[in-house]
């Protein structure tokens, strides 16, 4: 990816016109972008999101938008909005504006803009930490040189904490303190107060919260403070598979895409320089692609969605189907009955406190017999201190409601294989009747044209309609009461708190629901291979469902795995994109039987290739046979499966470009692991 820029073309009037004719940040300027929902000089920019959900709520606050906060805390304790940084701030604003609406715009999404802004702040922090503003000059981008870029590249693979030297800064604050003093600054959970620490180090508290670089560092100090016993309610009952990976990867470099983003900001500074002015004057990458540079800097390969083990996935689906088919209808009916009783009581006795009605209603309405296995014990959610196990054993009505939503979500996600954004954007009338069955209609998030979400429909089984109907029935009252058109339209909504305003379910909320659902249905734990590790639980995510359907479909048919059908269903741009799903190295032996079968097919049909020959020789040696034809395929399959399980060989599927032209074929390559 070579990027060159000719200066002459930049200076054309038509490109610069929007800067010179009238200030484009004024409200009545014809050039003001429609996505900027606030004043140009606002401390916090509000960016309109692309999916058309951005709106004002009753209180006049914008919701479903992205915000860029200019009032940033710098490592020296200053704020970016301070007067001495006024020029820098203006440059930043113009840059962020130009990346979406300038003549050299690179993104059309608010999230992309938001990410670029964050990376820009990292660069500014790095400049402050490395004293670019001393002795006499103000901080400015134009002072950066190619030498600085090389300096920046040294630490970039470890991310912003390394660039901004969090470790040194935290150490300088904490090392000087005695344990007693540390204890003085501990919070109610018995850890060092993060708030205090952030204040001391000039780091924004939200950045330090779950940072894989800082967490282990602080844990060391936390151990020095006497542990008082955590009072917090744990989100999950067991260690998650993700936490496990996070702990392993503390000192790993960042993924290449993340490093690429951090490097890319230098390119933006160069590219937008003619528009914004006062930015860097050199192309840091010259002829080198950022991807290659990121890999040269030893960034980790891109992290992909992990493959959920088949038995765990099926356990989830079974439980979700049970909730939707067995409990769902009666639960919805029960909740409606509760609501009706609640209103009656409220009408009779208008004086009592709010919390009073719901338990009363719960006492009056009998629980249906079909809901007996759930063992609903109360109306309101349990207090925070209640152990997770007890909550799962005797959930409240509100909990059950959440479980039902997560069950419906899992079913829809598993059978439609949509991305989480697309799922949460589903509307009430998303089910369409086609002449060969039901279809679901959704806005395609990736692969749609600029600013418009393409409406696509794909086949679904009747079970999904059941789930959607349940969700509609569950929230029928909320939807009727709300004035918000978005709430009326969206499928996944919830009442935010007790009788609070209704809100759309966000990604974070549904993930929380999914976690508690997993604990409630008691998904079997996975025993790790290493003896000293703890067993962990696989908490499901929508993209894993997508991947599971794709893999099980592709590897599930022996003779004709229809790649194009899968590509069509997943709404990919082409089969090359789909093959990436199948190309990734599979961890563990989740689908090893299929992999083995595919391997054996290749082994028996393609004799010529070098890697195949190698495996052939291994196999023959193992079986002490003269030819593969003598051995039964299933025996070879068993053998190959064993090899996978032992990680002796690895498995890839590739588009192979043959010598004589552009013929593609699916092929399997083998390489012995360097264990």
């Amino acid at each position: 990816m070579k990027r060159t820029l000719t200066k002459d073309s930049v200076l054309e009037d038509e490109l610069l016109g929007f800067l010179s004719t009238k200030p484009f940040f004024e409200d009545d300027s014809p050039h003001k972008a429609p996505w900027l929902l606030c004043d140009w000089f606002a401390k916090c920019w509000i960016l309109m999101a692309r999916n058309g959900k951005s709106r004002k709520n009753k209180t006049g606050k914008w919701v479903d938008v992205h915000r860029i906060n200019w009032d940033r805390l710098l490592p020296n304790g200053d704020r970016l909005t301070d007067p001495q940084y006024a020029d820098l701030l203006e440059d930043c604003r113009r840059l962020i504006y130009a990346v979406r609406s300038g003549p050299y715009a690179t993104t059309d999404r608010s999230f992309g803009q938001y990410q670029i802004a964050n990376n820009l702040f990292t660069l500014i922090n790095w400049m402050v930490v490395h004293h670019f503003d001393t002795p006499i000059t103000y901080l400015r981008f134009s002072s950066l040189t190619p030498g600085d870029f090389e300096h920046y590249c040294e630490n970039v693979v470890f991310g912003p904490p390394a660039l901004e030297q969090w470790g040194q800064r935290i150490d300088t604050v904490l090392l000087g303190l005695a344990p007693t003093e540390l204890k003085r600054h501990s919070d109610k959970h018995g850890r060092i107060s993060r708030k205090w620490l952030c204040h001391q180090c000039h780091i924004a508290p939200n950045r330090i919260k779950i940072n894989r670089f800082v967490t282990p560092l602080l844990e060391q100090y936390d151990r020095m403070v006497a542990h008082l016993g955590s009072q917090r309610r744990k989100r999950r009952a067991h260690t998650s598979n993700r936490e496990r990976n996070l702990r392993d990867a503390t000192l790993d470099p960042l993924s290449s895409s993340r490093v690429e983003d951090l490097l890319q900001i230098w390119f933006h500074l160069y590219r937008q320089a003619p528009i914004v002015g006062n930015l860097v004057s050199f192309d840091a990458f010259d002829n080198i692609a950022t991807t290659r540079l990121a890999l040269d800097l030893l960034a980790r390969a891109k992290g992909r969605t992990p493959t959920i083990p088949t038995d765990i996935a099926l356990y989830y689906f079974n439980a979700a189907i049970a909730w939707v088919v067995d409990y769902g209808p009666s639960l919805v009916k029960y909740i409606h009955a509760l609501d009706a009783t609640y209103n009656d009581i409220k009408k009779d006795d208008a004086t009592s406190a709010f919390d009073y009605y719901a338990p009363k209603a719960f006492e009056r309405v009998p629980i249906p017999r079909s809901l007996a296995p759930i063992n609903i014990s109360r109306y309101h959610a349990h207090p925070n201190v209640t152990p997770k196990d007890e909550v799962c054993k005797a959930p409240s009505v509100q909990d059950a409601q959440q479980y039902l939503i997560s069950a419906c979500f899992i079913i829809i996600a598993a059978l439609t294989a949509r991305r989480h954004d697309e799922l949460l954007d589903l509307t009430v009338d998303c089910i369409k009747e086609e002449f060969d069955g039901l279809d679901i209609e959704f806005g395609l998030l990736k692969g749609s044209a600029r600013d418009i979400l393409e409406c696509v429909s794909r086949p679904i089984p009747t079970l999904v309609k059941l789930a959607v109907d349940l969700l509609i029935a569950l929230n029928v009252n909320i939807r009727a009461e709300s004035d918000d058109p978005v709430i009326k339209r969206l499928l996944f909504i919830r009442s935010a708190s007790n009788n609070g305003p209704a809100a759309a379910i966000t990604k974070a909320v549904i993930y929380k629901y999914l976690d508690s659902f997993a604990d409630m249905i008691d998904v079997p734990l996975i025993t790790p291979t290493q003896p000293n590790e703890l067993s962990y639980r696989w908490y499901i995510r929508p993209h894993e469902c997508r991947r599971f359907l794709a893999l099980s479909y592709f590897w599930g048919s022996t003779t004709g795995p229809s790649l194009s059908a899968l590509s069509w269903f997943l709404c990919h741009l082409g089969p090359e994109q789909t093959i990436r799903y199948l190309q990734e190295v599979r961890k563990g032996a989740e689908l090893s039987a299929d992999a083995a079968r595919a391997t054996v097919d290749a082994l028996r049909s393609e004799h010529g290739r070098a890697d195949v020959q190698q495996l052939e020789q291994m196999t023959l040696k193992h079986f002490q046979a003269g030819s593969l034809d003598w051995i039964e395929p299933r025996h070879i399959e068993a053998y190959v499966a064993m090899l996978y399980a032992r990680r002796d060989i690895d498995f890839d599927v590739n588009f192979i470009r043959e010598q004589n032209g552009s013929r593609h074929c699916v092929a399997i390559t083998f390489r012995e692991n360097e264990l």
Partner: protein
Amino acid sequence: MKRDLAGYRHLGPLVDVLCRHGVMLLKGIGYMSAYRTRRGLLSFVQYLSASQERLDYTDIPHFEQALKNWRDALYLTKSFPHTETRNYICATFFFLKRLQKAEALPSFRIPSPTWSRPPKPRKLKKRKYRPVRHAKPHALTAKCIDDRGVWRSYDFRELAHLGTVATELVRRFPEVNAGLSYSSHSRRRRTILAMFQFFKDHRLTFTPQDPKQLLIVLLKFREHFYRNRNGSAIATRNDDWRTLSALLTQLMRLRTLANVQIPEAFRTADKFREMNRTSKNHLGAILKGIRHSNARGKTVESAFDISLFEKDDVFLDHFYRDQRWAFDLLRDAAIRECREAINDFRRGQELIAKCDIEYLRAVYQDTGRLCDPHFANHGQAPSFFSPNHPHGLSNLLGWIWHEHNGLLKSKTFPGSEHIYRHGGTEHVKRMLGLTIDTANAFFIVILGETAINVESLERATVENKHGQDVFMVPTDSGKYVRINTTKPRARKVIPKLLTVGDDTEINAHTCLLAAVEMTAKFREHSKLKDLWIHSYHSKRTSAQPISGYGFVCAYSRFLQRHKELKPLKKRGATRTMIRGTAGILEWFDTGGNMLKVAEKLGNSPNVAMRRYTPKEIQDALYRREMRRSQQLLILVSTKDSDRVLPAMGYTNQKQLNRDLKAILNNPHYSGADLVKILFAAKPTTKRPAKEFPKVTFVISPHNIALLKLYVEYIRRQKLAHPLMDLDRAAAQTPLSFWIELWALIEIKFRDSFDRGERLRFVQGIKLAETMADSITFPPLT
């Protein structure tokens, strides 16, 4: 007159008056006057009806104005010459005056028949006067005025079978359509005729006054209307339907039809499968949009009418069957021809071998003639080539073969007059080598099997540029032969593997071999490298390559020659389509694997899909595949619970069992992880696996001999039933350990064996073969 005006009763009392007195007053006047009066009155009434005015003659000023308006309109329309128009108006007004005299009408002022601002009279000199068209209007001819004021007549004689209903409709037609454009008229006429044609074809009774029955037939017609017009776009269909619906609504207002809610047009085309012509490169009938009424093979074809609207399974099935049917028809015919041609050629070779060419030459040298002196009868010797000669054909072929290099040139060949008695030129040519028709048959067989580009195959050569014979290279296994096909447009060489067939079978390999063999003699002297060469009808001394046009003509003759290929000829099947169909069939057979298609066609996957596989078929297949996989996922997730049925959306166990059976029988799913899980528990619940007995057994030479016998027996069994499962056999027979041992000897051992143990066994058996004593083996697990 009564009949003419009967339809306008609703316009008011004037019509009654006209009807009552008309007949009486028209008596005694001339035919032409009476005719003009009638036409004029009718036109007046129609005009009023079109302008939606009421014939209320009591409202005198209004009525007078109406008369004036009508007069002006009639002048303006210019449907007749000016004077003729005036005649009509005069006659009409005169009639009205007479009515006034008879006191049938009140006395109002009848305007002058002359127009106040008459237009320029037409130049009659230039244009010959033509009498009025439709001088004798049929009862089923409707005449109505259009938006430009022109009177147009429309024929409805097709509705004659409807009797009075039709007359009524036709009478109403001018009324409801007056003032609309000509295109609207014709569209309305077309749609209503289509509707009645449908009723007639399907024997539906059209009862205009029975609302229930009317609605039913209308609904039926709508379905038919949307289904059976593959050619037109859905927008056109919708417009047509709306036109018809407007017409019917108007008729209902006039009480001609009972009042029903006319079914609406479909909003979108989603409900109906639109077959666009996304890909024309295959033999299928659907995409060509050709009706199947004349085609043979009704069983296949009759299915297509419904197939467009069936569910995906049926639709795909029909499409596949059609493709397969067309493909097989072509291929079978070609194979028949190939077989005949090859047999003819072989027979020709035998006959040539029998021919004593030296003797013929000697006789020719001696006598200067080609008559056989041995068979001379009274001085008359028969020709060597004559059918009366016992070796006539043999001599004929031999002479051509040796003296003319196998090329039949009638002008230079001395015995050419005998050829027609030996079966004709073509027959003799076939015995000598490749003819253009044989080449075509070979071509089709090769094309169907390998799907090589037509151009590439036409230009096939037996040697490459460097003069090396790399035409067909056998592979190591001997089962296949590799050929290189060049694709000129892509400038690349694509290797293809052909299956080697035996002598009886006709496939691409045998065809190519035969083609090479048949042209070998031609090639000797011509130095041509081309594969397809033949002897040309001319004085040219060497064989000629078959041109592209020659192939096209031969293909056309081929379709004509075989009666069963008539439908394909009607569809305009070309050779490129054979290639496309071969690709599509491959696609179906591999369950929609586009990589396999691409491999077969030699294109990139995207091109193969875009150009050769119709989009609609792709979508239908994708939908089916994905629906199946979703159902499978639900089934596997809920396999042991009671909620399988509601989750799958079924009402009874039968449907579920049918699905399970389908999955079990589907070869695409065998061995899939999910399917294995699905069927994992079943056998154990039914029949617990038997514990394998621990057997200690003794192996002696006697036992070894016995074992070998068993091994031979099982091998035979395995050959006879390739799908035999050893595990099941082991569980069922008491000879299970023998089978295990056989597996050991054949080095086909199971997972259950320990490697060390296995080695011991193998060595032990080898030892036992040579030793006289017996060896005791440890127990088998």
